[in-house]
């Protein structure tokens, strides 16, 4: 039986190669189907990775007190008129909140930095306190965070992100070196590890952290501010409730009025993300199923043509002793080979595509999915080849031999 298998495989390969263009066109549906399913898988794996990293950056036990809601149905112009978040409230929260473990005020401003001939525009300059190090998940790769004293004294010290280190201090040790933020000279005391992009949108590495006092004196008023509060992860809802009450009190919100601030958390991202994922997955699934069905019909059609074209061959083979099952297997194999050929072609394209996706999110083509996709294309081959192969198997040998 093994030699028959080899023979069938040989026939299939030579039939596919003899009609390369026809085989490719026939398998186009399968190609697209496999391409869709694997690219979708790659995309989702990339999104998952990027999302997880981004969520890690936000931290699941950190509440971000901000002027604007990250999610929700409030219009931005409604929120625009809210008073800014006051940095000094950070101290009050630290004193009064039961749930807050660490509290760090944040000021942000975007400006350019330079050193000698190199400059970078639009760098996020974060002013904060030494507590920030306890809240942020970003590790210091080299050097250190600034101390309480440096914070209080308003020193010009900076912890720089990976992009800054790579661009301003290429192949150099940045620690102890100086550079300009805007017109002011700062000294590098620490370097952050690489963090990548936040949800694939903006780089988290194009960032510089400096003491908040320094930041306010040099840059702010125009930038925005907020307070990051790290709480016990199991008490997130209680903490949110408590902080809401506290903030309302601090900002003199009357009982009849809505909150004029936002307590942002990581979880709505997750909900949003699973919906996006569902949408991508659903679309991919739909395209895949549709193209596989259409492709399958095309393959069934071309297999009927093949059986018709090779009626005399089938008759000859039967005369030489092929059983109906052997003929069935031969054409089934051919249909599977076309699909496998299409599947491999699709995978090759998907592999190329995944390299492109990889430019935007670090991602990889999931091997399991690739194998499943190949299995799926074989299944399409079996299903669409079944009727034509059965027809070939059932041909009357005499009719087949007489066929003109």
């Amino acid at each position, binding site marked *: 039986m093994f030699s028959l298998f080899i023979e069938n495989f040989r026939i299939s390969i030579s039939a596919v190669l003899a009609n390369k263009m026809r085989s490719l066109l026939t398998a186009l549906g399968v190609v697209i189907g496999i391409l869709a399913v694997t690219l979708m898988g790659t995309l989702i794996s990339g999104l998952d990775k990027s999302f997880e990293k981004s969520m890690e950056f936000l931290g699941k036990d950190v509440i971000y007190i901000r002027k604007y809601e990250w999610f929700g149905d409030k219009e931005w112009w409604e929120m625009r008129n809210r008073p800014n978040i006051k940095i000094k409230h950070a101290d009050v929260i630290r004193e009064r909140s039961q749930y807050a473990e660490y509290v760090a005020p944040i000021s942000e401003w975007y400006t350019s930095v330079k050193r000698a001939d190199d400059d970078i525009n639009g760098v996020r300059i974060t002013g904060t306190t030494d507590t920030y190090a306890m809240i942020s998940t970003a590790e210091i790769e080299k050097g250190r965070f600034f101390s309480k004293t440096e914070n209080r004294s308003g020193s010009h010290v900076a912890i720089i992100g990976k992009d800054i280190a790579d661009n301003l201090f290429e192949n150099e040790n940045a620690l102890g070196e100086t550079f300009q933020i805007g017109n002011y000279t700062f000294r590098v005391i620490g370097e952050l590890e690489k963090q990548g992009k936040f949800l694939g949108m903006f780089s988290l590495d194009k960032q510089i952290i400096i003491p908040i006092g320094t930041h306010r004196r040099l840059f702010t008023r125009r930038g925005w501010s907020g307070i990051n509060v790290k709480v016990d992860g199991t008490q997130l809802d209680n903490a949110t409730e408590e902080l809401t009450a506290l903030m309302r009190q601090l900002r003199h919100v009357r009982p009849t009025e809505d909150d004029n601030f936002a307590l942002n958390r990581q979880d709505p991202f997750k909900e949003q993300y699973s919906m996006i994922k569902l949408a991508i997955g659903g679309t991919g699934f739909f395209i895949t199923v549709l193209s596989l069905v259409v492709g399958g019909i095309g393959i069934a059609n071309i297999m009927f043509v093949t059986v018709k074209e090779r009626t005399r061959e089938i008759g000859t083979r039967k005369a030489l002793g092929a*059983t109906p099952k052997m003929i069935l297997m031969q054409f089934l194999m051919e249909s599977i080979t076309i699909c496998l050929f299409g599947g491999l072609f699709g995978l090759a394209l998907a592999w190329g595509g995944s390299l492109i996706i990889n430019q935007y999110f670090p991602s990889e083509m999931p091997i399991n999915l690739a194998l499943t996709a190949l299995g799926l294309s074989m299944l399409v081959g079996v299903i669409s080849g079944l009727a034509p192969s059965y027809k070939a198997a059932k041909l009357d040998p005499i009719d087949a031999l007489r066929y003109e």
Partner: protein
Amino acid sequence: MSLISLKDIYKIYNVGGEEVRALDGVNVTIKENEYLAIMGPSGSGKSTLMNMIGCLDTPTTGLYEFEGEMVNDMDDNQLASIRNRKIGFVFQTFNLLPKATAQHNVEIPLIYGNVRRDQRKSMAAAALESVGLGDRMHHKPNELSGGQRQRVAIARALVNNPSIILADEPTGNLDSKSGREIMEIFDALHEAGNTIILVTHEDYIAAHASRTIRLFDGKIKEDFSKVA
């Protein structure tokens, strides 16, 4: 014991409500090592009879015994097995696989017979040698002359060492020189103990055979054996 025994064989087609009797009550027995020619006008049922003997076709009514076994009762798989092991076909139009080499063409019955690869190769080579094509084993059909193609087909028919070789107008598509060469091969095969049945329109071809059956409208009109 007879190799083949056909009793009251009828093959009736219904074409547009009209009955066509391709075989109309045929009785024949064929013994081992016979050399039989079937003759008769076009449409007289020669091919139908041949296909019946080759287990490709089944009679409408009548009994067919092959080596003492009832062919009527066999299913598709048993018929395929008989065709594979016991019968060698040679067609007027050669019916070779165009993309396969001569050797591979000859291997086909062995593949269906589940013969191991190395054994298959040597058997195919030997069969091609015996028809004088030892030097053409790796040629494809389109690289061979008509006579050579038919010799490949004969090699394919005899490679399994069948009980009987059936040839339906084997020289019909060949010039007379190639035809003579083919007939020499059949003569030699008969000489070597094979049973051969061939269909022909030509008396000089039929003259090679030791027995001639003439069909007319599906009936045997004459069954004549040369005295040895």
